[in-house]
C-alpha cells in the first residue's frame, strides 16, 4: 500500500513539473542560440486559452494541443520578427509579448470561462499500467508527459550530438564569428525562437487540457517566469532543467500536503516554498563550476545586425 502512495505522490510531482519542462526546454533552445525571450509567460497562457478553445470547437484534445503549440509559435514569430529580423531590444520585446499574450488569452478564452472538459486521456496498457508501484508512473501518463520527457532527451541529443546543434550553440556563443564563417545566424535564431514558442504553447495547452481541464484567466500563475528562471539556474542544460522542474513539482506537492496537515505555518509561506526551494537548489548547482569561460551563452540577449 505504501508503495502505491509513493507512486501517487510521484505522479502528481511529474504532473506539476511537466508544463515547466515543456516551456523551459523551449526557452533553453532559444537562449542557447542567443535569444532571450522573456515572453514565455505570455506564450504559455495564450497557448492555454487557444488550445482549450480549439479543443472545445473540434472536440479533440490532440487538435487542441496542436492549436496551443501553434498559438505559442505565432506569438514567438512576432517576437522573432521584432528581435531577430528588426534587431529590436529583446528584453523590452519579451516583456511586451507577455502582456500581449495575457490580453489575447483573455480575448480568446472569454467564451469558455467556467466550462469543464474531460482531461487528456492517460495511457492504459493492460497489465503494464497496473503494475504495483511503478505501473501508473511509467505506463499511465498522458501524452504531454511523454512528449516532455522525449523533448528533454531529443534536445540534449540535438545540442551535443549533431552538427546543427553545434551550429546553434556556436551562434549563441559568438554571432560575429559565426557570421564571418558563413553560418546563418538570423535563420537559426528565428527557428530557435519558433521552437521555444511552440514548446511554451504546448506547456500552456497541458495546463488547460490535462492538468486542470478548464480555462480560467491567469491560470499559468507565473509558471512561465519559473521556466525562465529554471533555464538560467540550470546553466542552460536540458537535464538540469528537467531536474529543477521536478524539484519544483515536488515542493508544490509537498506544500499542499503540509497545508492539509495543518503545520501551523502561514499558507502563503508554504506556497512560496517551491519557488524558494527551486531557486536555492539551482543556485547551489550553478556554483559548482568555476574558472574561465562563460556559463551562459556569451551572445545571450545581444542584438545582431550583420556587418555591412
Amino acid at each position, binding site marked *: 500500500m505504501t508503495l502505491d502512495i509513493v507512486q501517487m505522490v510521484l505522479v502528481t510531482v511529474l504532473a506539476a513539473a511537466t508544463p515547466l519542462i515543456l516551456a523551459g526546454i523551449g526557452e533553453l533552445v532559444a537562449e542557447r542560440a542567443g535569444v532571450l525571450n522573456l515572453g514565455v509567460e505570455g506564450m504559455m497562457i495564450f497557448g492555454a486559452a487557444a488550445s482549450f478553445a480549439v479543443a472545445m470547437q473540434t472536440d479533440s484534445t490532440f487538435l487542441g494541443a496542436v492549436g496551443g503549440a501553434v498559438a505559442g509559435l505565432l506569438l514567438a514569430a512576432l517576437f522573432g520578427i521584432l528581435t531577430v529580423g528588426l534587431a529590436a531590444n529583446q528584453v523590452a520585446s519579451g516583456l511586451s509579448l507577455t502582456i500581449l499574450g495575457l490580453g489575447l488569452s483573455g480575448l480568446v478564452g472569454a467564451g469558455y470561462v467556467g466550462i469543464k472538459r474531460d482531461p487528456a486521456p492517460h495511457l492504459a496498457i493492460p497489465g503494464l499500467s497496473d503494475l504495483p508501484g511503478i505501473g501508473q508512473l511509467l505506463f499511465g501518463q498522458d501524452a504531454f508527459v511523454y512528449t516532455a520527457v522525449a523533448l528533454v532527451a531529443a534536445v540534449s541529443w540535438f545540442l551535443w550530438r549533431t*552538427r546543427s546543434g553545434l551550429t546553434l550553440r556556436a551562434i549563441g556563443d559568438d554571432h560575429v564569428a559565426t557570421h564571418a564563417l*558563413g553560418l546563418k545566424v538570423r535563420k537559426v535564431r528565428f527557428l530557435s525562437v519558433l521552437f521555444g514558442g511552440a514548446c511554451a504553447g504546448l506547456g500552456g495547452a497541458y495546463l488547460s487540457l490535462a492538468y486542470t481541464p478548464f480555462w480560467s484567466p491567469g491560470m499559468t500563475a507565473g509558471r512561465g517566469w519559473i521556466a525562465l528562471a529554471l533555464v538560467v539556474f540550470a546553466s542552460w542544460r536540458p537535464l538540469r532543467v528537467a531536474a529543477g522542474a521536478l524539484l519544483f513539482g515536488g515542493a508544490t506537492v509537498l506544500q499542499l500536503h503540509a497545508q492539509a496537515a495543518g503545520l501551523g505555518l502561514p499558507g502563503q509561506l508554504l506556497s512560496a516554498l517551491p519557488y524558494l526551494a527551486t531557486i536555492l537548489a539551482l543556485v547551489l548547482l550553478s556554483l559548482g563550476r568555476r574558472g*574561465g569561460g*562563460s556559463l551562459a551563452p*556569451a551572445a545571450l540577449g545581444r542584438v545582431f545586425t550583420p556587418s555591412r
Partner: protein
Amino acid sequence: MDATLPASALARRSKEGPTPLFGAYGIVKRFGSFTANDGVDLEIRAGEIHALLGENGAGKSTLMKILYGLLEPTEGVVTHKGDIVQLPNPEAARRLGIGMVFQHFSLCENLTVAENIALVMPKDLSGRALADRIARLGIDYGLHLDPDRPVWSLSAGERQRIEIVRCLLQDPSLVILDEPTSVLTPGEAEVLFTVLERLREEGRALLYISHRLDEVRRLCVRATILRGGKVVGACNPREETARSLAAMMVGSAVREVTPREGGAVGRERLRLDRLSLPAPDLHATALHDVSLSVAGGEILGIAGIAGNGQAELFAALSGESRAPEPDSVRLDGKPVGALGINARRRLGAGFVPEERNGHAAAPLMSLSENALLSRYPTASLTRFGLIRLGAARDLAKRVIEAFDVRKAGPDPAAGTLSGGNLQKFVVGREIQAEPGVLVINQPTWGVDAAAAAHIRQAVIDLAARGTAILVISQDLDELFEIAGSIAVLHDGTLSPAVPAGETSREAIGLLMGGSSDHAPPVADVAHPREPMPSPAHAH
C-alpha cells in the same frame, strides 16, 4: 574559357603569364555613398604568396570579404581559372578552395578546438575522425593542438593555429591571411612563415595581408597596393625598400620617428621593488620579485611573449591589482602599492592598457565620455559630482586635433573608430594630461604604419619633456626604435634592463624564450629584418 568573361574584364586581364588561379576584375563595392573598393583588379597565381598592402581603411578587408563570399560586389567579377564564379556565401568560396585566416579570430570561446573546427567541416566528419585529422595535420605542419581544450583557455598564437588548421583541413587552393602576425611573437611568427613557405611549395596560392613591410618583403614576390579603395601600384616587394612601399601605401613619405638625441635623464620617477603577486586566476601568470626603475626622460621597454605576465605587470603598475606591500610600487618616491588607479593618476601617472575596445575605451560610449572616464581625476571635468559636458567635449576635441584622430560625426562612439584612430585617441588622452609617469601596454598593436609612427613619436616627445615612460610590447622593432633600455619579462620574472644600444635582437629573443635551453628559433628573426620605415636606431 575567356569567352565567358565580359569584355570589360577581358580588357583588364593581364596579357602575360598563365591564367591566374583567381582573378578579381573591376571590383566596385559601395556602402551607401561610401565607395570602399573602386575598380580593383587583383590576380593571384598558384604557388605564390601575393601581398595585399594598404593602410587601415584602404579597402583590403572589403576586397577579402568579397573573395570569401561575405560581401557581394556592387560591380565586377571574380574568376577561378579563367571562369567567372559567383560567391554568394562563404560556403561557395570554401567549395572553390578558398580558405581564410581571420585577423580577429572567428572562434567561439566557449566551444572546444574540435567543435570550432567542425563548424565549417562537411557534416559527416566529426568526433574521433576529426580529432584524428587535426592531430595528423598537427604533426605534418608542426601545428599542435589539443582538440578538447576550450578556446578561452588558449593564447593568441594557439588560436591562430586553430584558424590555420581549420583552413588547411579543407585542402584550400587559396589561403587568405589577414594580418596574421599582428598577435604573434617573433618565435611564433617564424613557425608561421615556415608553414606558409611549405604551403606555397605545395602549389597553393596565398594572399597575405599585412602592414609589416619587412615580412612582406621576405615572403612575397608580388604585391598589390591599395589606397583609398583603388589599386595604386603593383610591385615586387623585394625590389623595393620598406620605405618606398610605405610611401606607396600612404601616398606620401611616411613621417619618420626621430629619436631623442641623448637627452638628460632626470630623477627616478617610477620604481618597483621586489614586487611579487600571486596569479589572480588559473590562466594568469604570477609575478616574482619584479624590480625596475624608470627615470624622468627615460623610456624603458619590456619585451616578452604574450602571457608571460604582461597583463599582470600592467595591472600592478596601474593599480588594477594592489600590491601586498605599499612600498613595492613607488611613484616619485611615494609608496602607492595600496592605492587605486585614480589615486595614482592624481599623483601624475597615466596608463594605456593593451585592449582598446573594452579596457582602454568603452566601445559604445562617445569619445567625450571616454575622455571623461579616465581623465576626471586629473582634469576638471566634474563640478560637485556633476559632469561638465562642455569641458569633456573640449578635452576630447583637443585630443582629436592633436593626434589627428579620424572619425565620422562630431562625437562618435569609440567602437566606430578604426583600430589605429582609436589607439591614437586613447594614447593621446593620457599624453594630453602631461603625466609624470606613463605606462603603455602594446602601444601600436594592430595599428597601421602611419598611426604607429605618430604614436611612437608622441611617446618619444613626451619623454623629452621629462616623463618616465614604460612601454610593454611584443614588437621588438618597436622597442628598439623607441626604448632607451630593454628588459625581458619571462614567466613572471623580469630580467635586468640593458641599454638598447648594447644588446641585440638575438639576445632579447633568447631571453624571451626563457634563455638558453629550449629557446624558440629566434636566431633567424634577426637577419632579414629591416626596421620599419624609420631607420631610427643604430642596428
